[in-house]
Structures are given as C-alpha cells and as structure tokens.
C-alpha cells in the first residue's frame, strides 16, 4: 500500500477548454533577485545550466545557476505561494568557477540533496549538509573529477547498488587548437561501489556528448544510457545507446539489435511518453531541424528503432518563428512539461547561436510548443511572452511559487539568466508528486509514475540527466485539465508496482513507499 501525504493544495479554478489554453508568462527577472550571467569565451560556448532542487526542506525549489568563468550562484527560493518569484543569493559552498552545468541528486541517500558540478576542468560532487550548505566530497566518496570539458550527465542506481552510477559526457580536447575535430575526450562511467565510487571507466567510443540520459526505453527494468553527440566534433561517430547491466562492461547497442545510425548536432535530450504507447519518446535538440523519436514498433521483441515524427507533430522548430530571421535555429535544453495544465504535455526548447555563426539565426527565440488535442504542437512562445532573443542554453521548468503553474528559468550565455512566472489564465487542474523510498536511491530515480486521467494514462519516468547541462530533482507536475481527481500509481525502480490511488486536483503529494 502506498502512503500518500497531502502537503498542501492550491486550487486552480476548473475551466473547460476545447482548444489549447494559451500559456501566459510574466518575466520577473528584474524583481526576482536573480542576477547571474554565464560568461566565458570559446571554452564556454556550450553550457551553462541550472540545477533546480529543494535544499531547505520548505518544499519550494531553490536553484544553482552555472556561471562559466564567473562563479556559480546559489539562489534560495523566497517566493510566497501564488506570489511573485523571489530569490536570494546566499552562500552555499557551491560557488565554484568554471561550472558549465549542474545536476541535483541524493548521492549518498541521506535524504539531503547533493549536487554534481560539471566543469571545464575538474568535476566536483558536493555533499549536501542541510540548510542549503554543501561541501566538496570528491575525496570522501572516491569520485575522480578528472580534468576535461564536461558537458553531459546522467545518473541511475543499478540493481542492488547502494550508490548510483554516474555517467559524465565530455567534449573537445581543449589542448587541440588547430585540429580539435575528432579530439572528443572519453566519456566516463563512475559506477557506485560499496561506499562511494569505483575508478571511472571510459565509455569508448566517445563522440563529444552534450546530453545523456539513463532511460528504460524498452521497460526492461534495466535503464540504458542514451547519449546525444555533437557531430561537429566527432569523426566516425553517431548517436549512442548503451547497454548497462550489473557486473558487465557497458556495450553499445548495434545495428543488428535494431539501432539505426543518426548523426546530428546533438545538444539536449527530453523524454516523455507522448503517444501513450507505454514507452518513452525522445526529443533531441540540434541545429536546424530537431528530432522527435518514437518507437517504430511496440510489438514483439522491442528494437531501438525509432521513427522521426518531428515534422508530423510540428516540433521541428528549425528556425525562428518571430523576430524576422529566416536562418536556422540552434537548440539546446529541451523539457517536456504541461504548462497550461490541460493534461497534454508541452515542450520548451532553449535556443541561441553558438557564437557568431552567421549562417544560423542570431535572434533565435526560445520555443514553447503547446500540444493540442490532435497530438500536434503549436508554437506559442510569442503569445506566452517567453520568446527571448538572448543566447539561451540551459533551462528549468518548475512551480517556484506553488500556484500550480510551472514557471521558467533560462540560462543565457553572455547575458543575465531570465525567469518568468506562469500566470496562465484558464489553466486546467494539476497535481504535483514527489517520490520517496527508503535508502538507497531515496528519490526513486528510475521509477515510473502513471497518472490516469479518464481513459488516458500519462507516464513519466523519474530520471536524473538529460536536457542541456541542467537537472531537476523535486516535484513532478501533471496537468489534469478538467479532471478533479486523478488515479496515480508508481512503478518503483525495482519493478514493484504500487496500487492505484486517488489524488485530488490541486494537491501536492509526497508518495512514499512502505
């Protein structure tokens, strides 16, 4: 039997909608207290990211913004329920320089969130001490931070493991000035040991990863590692999917197993089960056309053979939709969330020129692609007022003020990070869940949440990784549309299937495992 704890509820009026509700956001950067810029030259052309997590136990998600050559900045969330977004920069111990990205994760399963800092240089794991204080734990946990240009991260607990396995993706060899192409630094897999981490093993071949995600693509119970690679720098490379089995060396899926070669400027991964076939679909950001992959067949023995349905679903997002530029776009962070609570998953994509690439758009607005009832997505970034022309990279969508609407934070290269409050009128109902289970893996990374809304079952895989150097740990948000109570169940990481439970709309619920 699951234990459901109602923490607090914030009721959103029920409004019937036939067409997608247009999301509305108000930019509150100037009044939010956020004042952070991701800076740096060539070595920081990818990144920076944002980590969104709650480190003071108040239920409101705080965040760490990567700074590049500037120091990272931690912001405590001081927002009031339903109010303006308010943050305060406070010392946390996370204020390192050369940070490109950050992912929250309770590595030691002590119920206090830790942080992995991806850096241009040594990566650092920071142990949470409580009260939003952190300390370096590389030595204590046997984590070899290396000295590379780290640009991707994913984490999972292998079956029976007490400590997580961390995958770190690396980019170009910084020492190669004239001929950096083909110099992709090896990616690393830091497998959990009895306590801490074993020496990292190289995930060879490595092809300049810009996003990684442990995902149970075939519902086998053993997540695989998807790696999205930047074709600009690899030679002989492609997108990758790794088998990761307990006690075995990682190995790549092969063409004989159904894997198809795909070569893109891979920059970010987002996943969601859009077509309700029970398996995650993957949105891969790139330059010009982006990809939306769905399994070609879910009959019989599954093969990792995907069809690209980006065009059919309206999410190629290949060039700016506002601002007058016709040159192709450059896409980075992507995240599936329901921003208008209509029960249909939407898609946010951060956009921005790499650096002075004149054949790509310089004024490249971020996308907010809102799903309609026919399964196609409609660009609403301009109407929603989130069509920023800054050079965006990482991002996060979270309900920072607990009003039941997902807000948006975006990290920009060379200009201030921006934050928007979601003020959508006429949005649907919602619930927010947070999973917890006994140690290890207290946040149930690898679990699957199913929400039954009428006849439709929406699935959500709880992951750590993906996006573009930006990670979140905390509430999982589901829009419900007009539904006033949803049926919810959890498939825990070890495969145990919880029972269906009823959660009333507007509830923020901790879902615990007995």
């Amino acid at each position, binding site marked *: 039997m699951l234990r459901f704890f109602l923490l607090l509820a914030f009721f959103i009026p029920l409004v019937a909608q036939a067409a997608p509700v247009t999301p509305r956001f108000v930019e509150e950067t100037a009044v939010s207290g956020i004042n952070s810029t991701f800076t740096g030259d*060539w070595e920081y*052309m990818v990144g920076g990211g944002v980590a969104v997590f709650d480190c003071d136990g108040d239920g409101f998600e705080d965040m760490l913004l990567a700074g590049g050559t500037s120091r990272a900045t931690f912001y405590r969330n001081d927002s009031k329920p339903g109010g303006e977004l308010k943050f305060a920069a406070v010392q946390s111990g996370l204020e390192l320089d050369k940070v490109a990205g950050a992912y929250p994760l309770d590595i030691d399963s002590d119920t206090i969130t830790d942080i992995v800092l991806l850096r241009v240089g040594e990566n650092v794991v920071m142990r949470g001490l409580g009260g939003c204080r952190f300390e370096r734990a590389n030595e204590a946990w046997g984590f070899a931070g290396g000295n590379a240009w780290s640009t991707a991260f994913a984490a999972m607990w292998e079956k029976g493991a007490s400590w997580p396995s961390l995958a770190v993706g690396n980019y*170009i060899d910084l*020492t190669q*000035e*004239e*001929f*950096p*192409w*083909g110099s992709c630094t090896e990616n690393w897999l830091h497998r959990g040991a009895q306590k801490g981490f074993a020496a990292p093993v190289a995930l060879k071949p490595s092809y300049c990863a810009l996003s990684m995600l442990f995902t149970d693509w075939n519902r086998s119970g053993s997540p695989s590692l998807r790696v999205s690679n930047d*074709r*600009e*720098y690899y*030679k*002989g490379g492609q997108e990758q999917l790794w088998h990761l089995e307990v006690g075995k060396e990682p190995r790549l899926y092969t063409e004989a197993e159904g894997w198809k070669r795909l*070569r893109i400027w891979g920059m970010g991964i987002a996943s969601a089960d859009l077509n309700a076939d029970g398996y995650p679909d993957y949105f891969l950001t790139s330059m*010009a*056309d982006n990809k939306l992959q769905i399994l070609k067949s879910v009959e019989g023995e599954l093969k990792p053979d995907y069809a*690209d349905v*980006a*065009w059919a679903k309206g999410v*190629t997002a*290949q*060039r700016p939709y506002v601002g007058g530029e*016709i*040159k*192709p776009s450059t896409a980075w962070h992507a995240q599936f969330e329901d921003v208008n609570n209509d029960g249909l998953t939407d898609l946010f994509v951060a956009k921005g020129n*790499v*650096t*002075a*690439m*004149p*054949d*790509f758009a310089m004024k490249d607005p971020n996308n907010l692609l809102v799903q309609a009832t026919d399964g196609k997505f409609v660009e609403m970034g301009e109407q929603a007022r989130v069509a920023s022309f800054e050079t965006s990279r990482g991002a996060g969508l979270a309900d920072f003020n607990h009003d039941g609407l997902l807000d948006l934070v975006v990290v920009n290269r060379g200009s201030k990070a921006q934050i928007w409050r979601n003020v959508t009128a006429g949005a649907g109902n919602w619930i927010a869940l947070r999973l917890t289970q006994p140690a290890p893996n207290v946040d149930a990374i690898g679990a699957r949440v199913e929400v039954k809304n009428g006849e439709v079952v929406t699935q959500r895989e709880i992951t750590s990784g993906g996006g573009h150097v930006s990670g979140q740990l905390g509430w999982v948000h589901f829009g419900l549309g007009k539904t006033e109570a949803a049926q919810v169940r959890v498939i825990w990481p070890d495969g145990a299937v919880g029972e269906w439970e009823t959660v009333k709309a507007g509830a923020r619920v901790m879902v615990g495992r007995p």
Partner: protein
Amino acid sequence: MVFCRRDFIFGGILVLAMSGRPLGAIAAEPARVVQAWYRLVLELVRHTPTYTPPVASRSFAYVGVTAFEAVASGNPKLKSLAGQVQGLKPVPLREAGQEFHEAVVLHAALASIIRHLFANTGPTGQRAMNAMGSKLGAKVADGVASDVAARSEAYGRTVAAHIQAWAAEDGGAVIENMGFPLQMDLPKGSQDWAPTNLVRQQQLPLLPDWGKNRTFAMPNGASCKIPPPPTYSEYQASAFYAEALEVYEARKNITEDETAIARFWADDAMLSKTPPGHWIHIAMNALQKEQADVARSVEVLARLGIGLADAFIGCWEAKYQYNLLRPVSYIRRVMDPKWEPILLTPPFPEYPSGHSTQSGAAAEVLTQLFGEDYAFVDNAQDDEGLPPRSFASFRAAAQEAGISRLYGGIHFRAAIVNGLEQGRCIAAFTNALRTRR
C-alpha cells in the same frame, strides 16, 4: 607514406612523419606550408555550414589558384593562369630588386584567402585558423629579416586580395540559407525531382543556379553537354524502369564489398571532407609520396581545384536542365513503398551524378599530372573508421566512385556513366591550361 592526420600536428611543433626530420629544420619549406593549410581546409569544408560539395569545389579552386599565383610570381618556370582562366587578370608584380621569402609569401596568401573563404565558419574554425595563422606564421618567419618578412607578408596578402576580388564576381560568392532557395516553384511532373527527406530546409533543391556560375577553364557551364537520361516511364518494359530495377536489385542483393564501396565514397556534406575534398586528399597523398616541391604542389592543387570546380558547375547546369527524380522517389512510388537506400539521398536532382562528374574530371586531371597507371592507396576515410582502398589508377578510382552511388541507392546508372563522361570532357579544358613555361 600516405597523408594522415598525425602527420600534421601543430602543437608548437610540426611533425612530419614522411621525412622524420624535426619541424624546426623544415617548417619553412613552402611545400609544407601548403600541406598544413590544405589539411585545415579539408576540416573547414566539413565544419562550415554552407560548404556543400559545389561550394567546397569553388573554394578548392580559389585556394589552389591563390597558392599557385603566389608561387608563380616568384618562380620563372611557372606560367601564371591569368588570361587562361575566366576573368583572371595578372596579379600585381613583386617589387623589383627586392628580396622575398617564399614561405612567408605563400603562408600570408593562403592565410588571407582561407580566412576570407571561410569567414562564415564557426568559432572553432575561427580559433583554428587563428592558431594556424599565428603559429605557422611565426615559424615561417623565424630567422627571416624583418623587412623581408614584412614585404613578403604584404605581397602574399596582395595576391590573396587580387584573387578575392576576382572570386567575388563569379556568382557563387554569396550563399544564403545554406544554398537552399527560400522560394521556388517546383515542377510537379512524375519525372521531376521531389524532396526526399523530412529536413525542412531541404524541401527545395540545393543551389539551382550554380550551373550559371562563371567557370574557370571551360567556357561556361553548358560546355560539356550530356545526352538526356532514359525517358521517364513506369512501364516495366521501359529503359527507365530497368534502371530503377537495377538500383532496387543492387540494394536487395548488395554484398559486403559493395556496401563498403558505397560508404567509402559517401562523402556526405557536413559529415565529411566532401567529394571534391576526397580528391584533394588523394592528390595530397600523391604529392607527399613523391616529396613534391612547392611548385609541383601548387600546380597540382590549382589544376585539380579548377577541374573540380568546373565539374560541379557543368554538372549542376545539367542537373537543373533535366531535374530528374531520385531513385528513392521512383522506387517507393512504383516498386516498394518501404524501400530504403543505403546512403542519405542528397537534396537535389539526380541526373547526372555529381560525384561521377567530378570524379571523372579529377581522374583525368590527376592522370595527366601523375601518369596513366598511378597505383595508390586511398585512406581518406580513416577518420570514419573505414579501411583504405587500393586503386590501380585514378580512373579506376573514379569508376568506383561512380558505381558507389548505384550501390548506395542514390543514382541510376545513366547518371553515373554520363556523369563520368561529362567529367572527362570538363577535365580536357583544365588539362589544356599551361602552368609551366
């Protein structure tokens, strides 16, 4: 010894595997300057967004002519291409009675023209060009009297500026939307080209006006006409159907070696050094093997660049004359709706085959320069993890490049046969150029 990546590593030291000598002793040799910059150019054509094969061929021509004119201006044995290729006027003369350092002249000329031609490359390419320019520049000028170095550098830039001004008027200098038209009325006949992929930008065909560009050695883009392809038909008894069936059957029964051939010559735009870059790579290996001096090096590279550029202009002129659909379009419509070729189908009309035309031209140019039965090993795909292939002659390599497109499922046989023939015709104009006095 064949040209490979590790032969040219600049980390403050240029390592030359062929000679085994330390860089310091030979870095100033002008032929090495050519090799170093060309290696970078082969990377830049892969990593610069507008560099589809026609655009790459154009740059190979201008880089080659720049290098040649820079060297010829100080070498009485070489005959300038001014007055021989379309629109090129004599480069300014060197200041009489003054000393010039050939490596500095050449380095400055190449650095300048390459920075111009690849001005739109990304931040990494810019960083690479800057690093090459500064490190190699310092090395070639090492030990050279400052006034000589300054004079030589200025002259090299003058040569590049002269070529740059010439290039600006050829019709191919400005590439918008990566070469894909923003608007174009596509003919809708059954035989007409239609988009073959779901890339938004590629729903209109690449560079439809490239065939109108000013040529180099041949009079114009239509100078080497080819016969039309078989008349379009969907009847099984037709010649057109037979050609499509050949492609279909080739895919169905493809052997391991045929698959290897298709992939070896794939040379996809923005994923490789491109088809013209593949032949530049072959030429560089040949030059390195014979330890060619700078005069020979720039002569070969200029002539090959010209031949390749003319080949793409001629080929593109024919492509948009016939505007033929690709095998994937026909086969899916008429034979098998789920058919998939091995290679990515390029986003422009089928007839004739671009790789065939330019390979046919390249083979003729190189045969004239290196001989009829020049056997060589082609390691152009080492970076992609594909094993080298051996050829008894340049023409044998061109034949294989041509048939690779049938194995790959992206061309019918007529496009290959007539493309190779068109290339041979185009090369005759290049081969008529005089580069020696």
